[in-house]
C-alpha cells in the first residue's frame, strides 16, 4: 500500500506545474504596480511554491502545509496583518513520536524544519515526504530556469 503510493505519485506532472506557475507569473507581471523588488521576488517565490504544491496534490503533507502557509500569508498581507506571525502555532503538533532508537535526532529535526508540513512524522514517513518534495522542487527549479532562459534570449 505504501509502495503503491510511492510509485504512483512519484513523477511530478510537469505540464501542470508549468501551467500554474506561468499563469501566476503572468498575473503578477500584469500588475504593473510593484512596491519593491524584494516584495515582487517574494511574491514570485510564493507563486512558485504554490504552483508546486498545487501540482503535487492534496495527498502529500508538504503540499498541504505549503499551500496553507502561502495562502495564509497572502490573505494576511491583504488585510494588513503583520507577516512575521507564522501559522505554525495551530498546525504544529506538540506530540512528536519520540523514538529512543532514532539514531539521528538532530539531523532528522533539521530535515523536519526544512520540509514543510513534516513537523511530527516518524523517520520513514519523513523520508518519503522528503523524496517527494525534492522531486517537485527539482521540477520547479528546472521550470523556472527554462522560463528565465527563454525570456532572456
Amino acid at each position, binding site marked *: 500500500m505504501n509502495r503503491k503510493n510511492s510509485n504512483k505519485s512519484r513523477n511530478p506532472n510537469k505540464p501542470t506545474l508549468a501551467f500554474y506557475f506561468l499563469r501566476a507569473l503572468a498575473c503578477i507581471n*500584469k500588475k504593473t504596480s510593484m512596491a519593491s523588488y524584494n516584495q515582487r521576488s517574494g511574491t514570485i517565490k510564493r507563486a512558485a511554491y504554490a504552483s508546486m504544491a498545487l501540482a503535487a496534490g492534496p495527498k502529500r503533507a508538504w503540499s498541504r502545509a505549503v*499551500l496553507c502557509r502561502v495562502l495564509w500569508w497572502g490573505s494576511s498581507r491583504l488585510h494588513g496583518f503583520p507577516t512575521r506571525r507564522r501559522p505554525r502555532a495551530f498546525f504544529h503538533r506538540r506530540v512528536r513520536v519520540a523514538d529512543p532508537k532514532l539514531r539521528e535526532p538532530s539531523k532528522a529535526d533539521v530535515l523536519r524544519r526544512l520540509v514543510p508540513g513534516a513537523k511530527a512524522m516518524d523517520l520513514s514517513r519523513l523520508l518519503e515526504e522528503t523524496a517527494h518534495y525534492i522531486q517537485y522542487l527539482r521540477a520547479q527549479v528546472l521550470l523556472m530556469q527554462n522560463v528565465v532562459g527563454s525570456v532572456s534570449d
Partner: protein
Amino acid sequence: MQQSSREMQGMASSLNGIPSSAGVAAAAAQIALQELHNGHRQQQIQNPSMQVPAAHFDHSTAGSEAGSHDDFFDQMLSSLPSSWPDLGNPKVPWDLTSSSNPNGLAGKSPEESATAAAEGLQYAPYDESLLLASRLRQHQISGGSSPAGKQMLLQLNHPHQQQQQQQMLLQGMGRSPVATSGGDSGLLPMPLSLGSAGSADSRLLVDRSRDELDPSFRSNPTGGEGLYNGFGGSLQGGAQAAPQQHFHHPQGPSMPAQNFGGAPSAGVGQAGAAGGGTAPPRQRVRARRGQATDPHSIAERLRRERIAERMKALQELVPNANKTDKASMLDEIIDYVKFLQLQVKVLSMSRLGGAAAVAPVVSDMPSERLAVQGQSGRSGINGAAGNDSLTVTEHQVAKLMEEDMGSAMQYLQGKGLCLMPISLASAISSATCHPRPVAGNGGGIHHLNPGCLIPAPPPSNHNNPAVGSGAGGGGDGPSSPSMSVLTVQSAMANGGDTDVSRTSVKDAASVSKP
C-alpha cells in the same frame, strides 16, 4: 493590451479544470509567455539587471503589491476547490484513509481517533482474555467443569484468530491495522509461541485443551485436575504475557504479516485437526537465522528496513549520494533540500533582475561589487573597465587553479570575489546582466570551470545576438551553461561535478545536473 490580457485571463480560467493535458498547458504557457512579452513592451524602463531583449520581461518599480495578491491568490484559490476540500479549515482532514495520515493539516483529531479506535479494538480482546483467565483460575480452584473452561478458552482463541487472520490478510501493514494486529498479537502468544516463556505454557495450555477436548468428554477428572494445575501455572504466565504485550502497544510494534499469516493458519489448522498433534506443539515460529522472534525486535527490524528502503530511494534523487553512512546521507539530503530552496529563491529574484535583491545571496564582499554593477549598469558606467579586469582576473584564477586551489581561493579572496555553482551563478548573472555591447566578456565565463566568478557579467545578448548566442549561451539559459561551460572546459578535468563555493551555498552543493 488590455484585451489580450483579458483574453488570457478568460482562457486561463477556462483552463482551470483541465490543467493536465499537455497540449492545453503548452498553449497556456505560450499565451502566458506572450503575455509576459506584450505586457512589458509598453514600459521600456531599461532595467539592466535583467537581460531585456526586444520585447520581454520588464519591471516597473511603481505601485503597491496588494492588487497583485488579489489576482494571484484568487487564481490559485479558484483552482483549488475543484480538487481539494476545504483548505482554510485546519480541522478537516483531507484524507482519512489509513494509507496516508494527514499530519500537517488535520491536526491530532483523525490520527488520534484512528489510533483510539484501534486501541479500543485491542482492549476488548484483552479484557476478554483476562476475564476468561480469571474464570479459569476460579475453575481450577473449584476443581470442576473442565470442559467448560476449555470451551471458553477455545472460543476465546478462535474468534480472535479469525479476526487476526482477516485483519492481517486484508489490511496489510497500515497504521491502524498494525495497531490492531499488534493488539491481537498479544493474544497470539497464547496459542502460538511468539512471546516469552509464559506464552509457551499458554500454548501448551491451548493444545492440551484441544487435545483433551475429546478425551475430557469421557470425564477424566484426575487428568483434568492435572491439566488444571498446568492451566493455573501457565495461565498465570499467559495472563502476564498478555498485559506485557498489551503495554507495549502504544509504541506501535508492527508485526510482519508473513509470520502471523503462517502462524494463525497453522494454529487453526491444528485446532481443526482436533487433537491430531500430540503434546509438543508444532506451532512455534521458526526464527530466521540470527534474528530474534521477539515482536519488538521484529517491529524494529521492519522499521529499519522501511527506513533503509526510503533512504535508497532518496539516494537516487540526491546527487553525490554515494555515501553509505546514514548520517552523512542525511547530511547530503539536508544540503540538497537547502540548495534547491535557495535556487528557487534566487530564480524568483532573477526575474526581477534586482541586483540589490540578489546581493544577500552572495555573502562575501562581491556583493557590494555586484550591487554596484547592477545599479550603475543601468547607465552602463562600469562597462569596459570592469570587464577587462574581470577577464584578467579569470585568467589568473584559472591558472592558479591548475596549480593549487588554495592559492586560487586566496587570490579570489584578495580580489573580493567568490566562486559559486554554475547554475546559481548563471541564474544570478542572467539576472544581473547589463545591456552593454561587450562581446568579449562572454568568453570570460567559459574559461572558468566549476563555477564562474561573480560578478562576471554575462554577454548581453539582446544587443549582440550573434556573439551572445555564438558563445554558447554563456549567461543566458541557466540550464544550458552548465553544459556549455563544462564542454568548453579544458583547464580542469571534470570540473562538472566539483564546485568550489565560499558562499552560503555549502561546499557539498554540486552543479545541479538535471
